């Protein structure tokens, strides 16, 4: 139940107003169209009041005025349609810009951002969609809620000053009432968002592990705890809404009061015979119109609150300059010498360092095998070279130049990487291989598939290399998915090759085949391979034994 710190709220507001400033031109259009539509409404009410007064035996008015009112109704409707379209357009363009920036930041942060994927995806999808209402409804509604009633009150005042004053007073009370009821709701809105996000993250986590839950017969227990989480979300949300709806209540009360005051005002006038019946009717007829922009404002008020919550979550991500620091590579060198000098890395101080004082050098044409028990820091070395992490101490040099001065994305251009669990994207096998180098020719892709022994199992599939594979590699075994990843490395054709347990999921027969391909992949390149596999170790000459992040033994073949 912590309220967002003021600094965070200020950053959220800054993000929203900066985005609004950038889209100023688009945001002005719906406001102008809305004002024009309100002006039509005023003129129409005036004509209707004239006809009505005439019916009651005061003044002239008839079919001509009625026809005028009808055409004004058509015009106002057309203007409203145009306004809605302009609003939607403004919202869409603001969202597109924000989404682009937020996603670029998430990719830039890379694996260092340890939040669950569902939560990060919610940032670029749900949170940004949640901002739509701010730009498409709240901003125009806020502007119209100020200008629209003012316009109407002035028009009413010209007919009957006291009625105008009543409307002015009512209009002034609305924001005061809303501010009084809205503050608590704004605070609570953030909590509701957190709960919603936690629920959504939990769903993704449990859905992805559904087979485990089913096999351990825990699906029913999990369903019940999901129910409890949803209940908790409902309680929190209702707490927000109880306050948020008060702003609607304030408006209703003021509406009823205004109507009562005007009826009393014009009723009182009657005692001495009404001086201007047409004006009295006009004043009354304008009441719903006067409150319509305020109602839209009240309805859109939640948009602002949820936008504040969403923006507070987005603001830390979008902080700082959009451009990334670091140098760019002029060209990819034909060969790379990798040097580690006293490198240290700590992910989490509570768990101790992942790497301590690690030094080694790998030359072109050489392959260094990193060995050691799980958790000894083998993968960390590869993560550093991939720019997923920066070292806390020491120096990593490529061809003698400090690797950390390069932009991480530029660093990665030098290397081909096969991780522990290769991810296959929802696409065909061919497209999955092409990921490594999209400009490659079909012949190159097929050569890479052959070299990684992908062709062997792909030919048995219904559509060969064009067979679709799902997220997580549905339809392919772990070993087959890994072979696709190795094909990517072949296609990439870079001076540096980084392999993280490339044969962990392969049976001995397949491993032997893949080992040959891996040797060919490493030939003439600089290769660093983290592995447990004795067979893989035996193929390469140099090994470095790691234990708890330290090098304990360096060995050449035959030693």
């Amino acid at each position, binding site marked *: 139940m912590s309220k967002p710190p003021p600094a965070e709220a200020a950053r959220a507001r800054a993000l929203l107003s900066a985005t609004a400033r950038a889209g100023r031109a688009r945001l002005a259009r719906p406001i102008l169209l809305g004002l024009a539509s309100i002006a039509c409404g005023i003129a129409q009410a005036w004509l209707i009041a004239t006809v009505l007064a005439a019916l009651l035996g005061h003044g002239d008015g008839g079919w001509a005025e009625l026809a005028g009112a009808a055409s004004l109704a058509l015009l106002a409707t057309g203007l409203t349609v145009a306004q809605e379209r302009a609003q939607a357009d403004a919202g869409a363009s603001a969202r597109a810009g924000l989404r682009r920036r937020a996603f670029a930041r998430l990719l830039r942060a890379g694996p260092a951002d340890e939040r669950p*994927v569902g939560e990060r*995806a919610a940032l670029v999808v749900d949170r940004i969609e949640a901002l739509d209402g701010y730009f498409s409804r709240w901003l125009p509604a806020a502007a119209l809620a100020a200008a629209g009633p003012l316009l109407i009150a002035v028009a009413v005042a010209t007919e009957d000053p006291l009625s105008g004053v009543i409307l002015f007073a009512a209009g002034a009370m609305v924001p005061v009432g809303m501010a009084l009821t809205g503050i608590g709701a704004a605070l609570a809105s953030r909590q509701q968002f957190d709960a919603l996000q936690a629920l959504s993250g939990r769903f993704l986590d449990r859905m992805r592990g559904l087979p485990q839950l089913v096999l351990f017969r825990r699906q029913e227990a999990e369903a019940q705890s*999901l129910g409890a989480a949803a209940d908790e979300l409902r309680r929190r949300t209702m707490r927000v809404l109880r306050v948020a709806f008060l702003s609607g209540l304030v408006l209703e009360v003021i509406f009823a009061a205004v109507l009562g005051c005007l009826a009393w005002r014009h009723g009182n006038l*009657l005692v001495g015979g009404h001086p201007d019946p047409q004006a009295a009717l006009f004043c*009354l007829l304008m009441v719903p119109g006067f409150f319509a922009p305020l109602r839209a404002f009240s309805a859109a008020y939640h948009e602002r609150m949820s936008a504040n919550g969403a923006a507070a979550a987005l603001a830390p991500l979008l902080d700082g300059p959009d451009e990334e620091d670091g140098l760019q590579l002029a060209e990819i060198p034909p060969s790379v010498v990798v040097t580690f000098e006293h490198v240290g890395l700590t992910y989490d101080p509570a768990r101790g360092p992942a790497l301590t004082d690690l030094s080694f050098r790998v030359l072109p044409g050489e392959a260094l095998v990193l060995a050691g028990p799980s958790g000894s820091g083998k993968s960390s070395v590869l993560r550093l070279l991939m*720019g997923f992490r920066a070292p806390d101490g020491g120096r990593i040099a490529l061809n003698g130049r400090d690797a950390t001065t390069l932009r991480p994305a530029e660093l990665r251009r030098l290397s081909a990487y096969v*991780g522990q669990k290769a991810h296959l994207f929802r696409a065909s096998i061919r497209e999955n291989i092409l990921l490594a180098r999209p400009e490659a020719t079909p012949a190159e892709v097929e050569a890479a598939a052959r070299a990684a022994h992908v062709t062997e199992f792909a030919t048995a599939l219904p559509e060969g290399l064009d067979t679709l594979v*799902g997220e997580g590699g549905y339809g392919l075994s772990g070993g087959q998915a890994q072979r696709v990843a190795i094909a990517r490395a072949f296609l990439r054709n870079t001076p540096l090759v980084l392999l993280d347990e490339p044969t962990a999921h392969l049976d001995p027969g397949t491993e032997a085949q893949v080992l040959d391909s891996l040797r060919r992949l490493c030939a003439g390149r600089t290769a660093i391979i983290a592995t*447990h596999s004795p067979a893989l170790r035996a193929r390469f000459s140099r090994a470095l034994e790691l234990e708890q992040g330290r090098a304990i033994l360096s060995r050449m073949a035959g030693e």
Partner: protein
Amino acid sequence: MRQDLTRVLGLWGARRAWLLAGVAMAVLAALAGVALLAFAGRGVSEGLRTGALTGAAIGSLLLLRPLMVLRPGARYLERLVTHSATFRALADTRIWFFRRLAERLPAGLGLRGAGDLLGRLVSDVEALDGLYLRALVPGTAAIAVVLAVAVLLGAAEPALAAIVALPLALALLLPPLLAPGAARAAGRVAEAQGGLRAAAVDPLLGLEDTLAANAEPRAAARLDEAGRALAATQDRLSRRSAWGGATGSLLAQAALLGALGYGLAGGPGAVGATIIGLFLALAAGEVLAALPRAGTALAAAGASAHRLFEAADTPPPVAEPEHPAEAPSGHALRAEGVRFAWAADRAPVFEDLSFDLPEGGRLALLGPSGAGKSTLASLLLKLAAPQEGRLLIGGADIATLSADTVRARIACLTQDARLFDDSIAANLRLAAPEADDAALWRALERAGVADVVRALPEGLETRCGEGGARFSGGQGRRLALARALLAPADILILDEPGAGLDPTAERAFLETLESATEGRSVILIAHRLMGVERPTRILRLVGGRALPAMG
């Protein structure tokens, strides 16, 4: 669409009282609003017509006072009750959907993709609120208002009642008329939303591979493209809803101007009724203004419901027997001539698989990747059913046993065993909810990961992160192994228990396999044997058959 929405209402049956209370509040608030405007108009016009405050006018003005309180109060309660009812109903739907998927898609999501499915769950379930909040509630309120207008005017001037109530009644027809078109548009929006989410989730799930391939610009371009596609569909939907809104407000205007025209044509005699008609039309217009949106909401809810049910109605992979047999007392396993293929157009995994595993036996099942070793686990756990032949446990065909009975007897460490974003203890207790800490430590000890956990500052309470992201691959694998060992099952299937472990750790675990599994039957699935497992039988899968092999 109607079928899907009726089915949604059926799911909400338990919340009927809440839902009906919300509708009743909405009707009350709408009628109070109509009365407020009608009395105000009547008071003033009576006064204007007679030139003095008559009894009728005073009466009307006095009646305003309770209405002034009643209407805002009813509106506030309406919103609270309808929202609370919606949240309750949606929570029911969410859990129903989860249970359903556990039953229908127990083997996981496959091509559906977790990102897309999350979109379905959260957004589609949330979108169902529109059915109640934006369609049923305002729809019922609007019907009540139109009826009230027709009755009030009909008593005085039937012709005027027709002129005013007819356009209003037409406006009532808008939601069902607009819904099918809007449903198509909403379906496309939801589809595009799923596409956008997939475009965001997929590269994030494979973040290392995306970055390693320098594919960030391509992933961003894909997201941009998906965003544009979504905006285009949203634009079409909003255009429909804008035109629907325009039609509704024109109909309300027609009622209002019609009342005026009736007054002009009918002369002085009709004036009193005309004025009341005018103000009633004005009040009704306010209530009806929300109605065309109800069509859009109805459509969006229909599209969401359709997708939810589509996923939820996937036939279960293995039908439950109608009258499940009693759980057998023994747990000897036997396969008799099993034939199985994942799909009719795929090559069969097993042609004629037969083997025996007596109680307490240890069967090593070897074969190259893709030979179907893991498929056997799916068949034994009733995640798939053989097309021919039988699998028996304790002499009973598993087809005659409920899946729950079978899974209670067999624990499995699958290749993709996931850890949940929860504490280590909670992850282990999935297998045995009642296990005490000592039992957890014993299992961790056997899986060779107790030292790692002991070294953590929070010990058993350490959170594992999504998919066990806080741990290295080998550590996560051993935690999953500890979980499988903890399960109180008679038969253990260990699918590549050594994958991701270093050879020393793998050898150490396999050496203790016999004591770690405490005399339970074990099926060890592996590429190869390390020579320390001491299986009682070794079978090699070749061409869909199990051939006895020597270690």
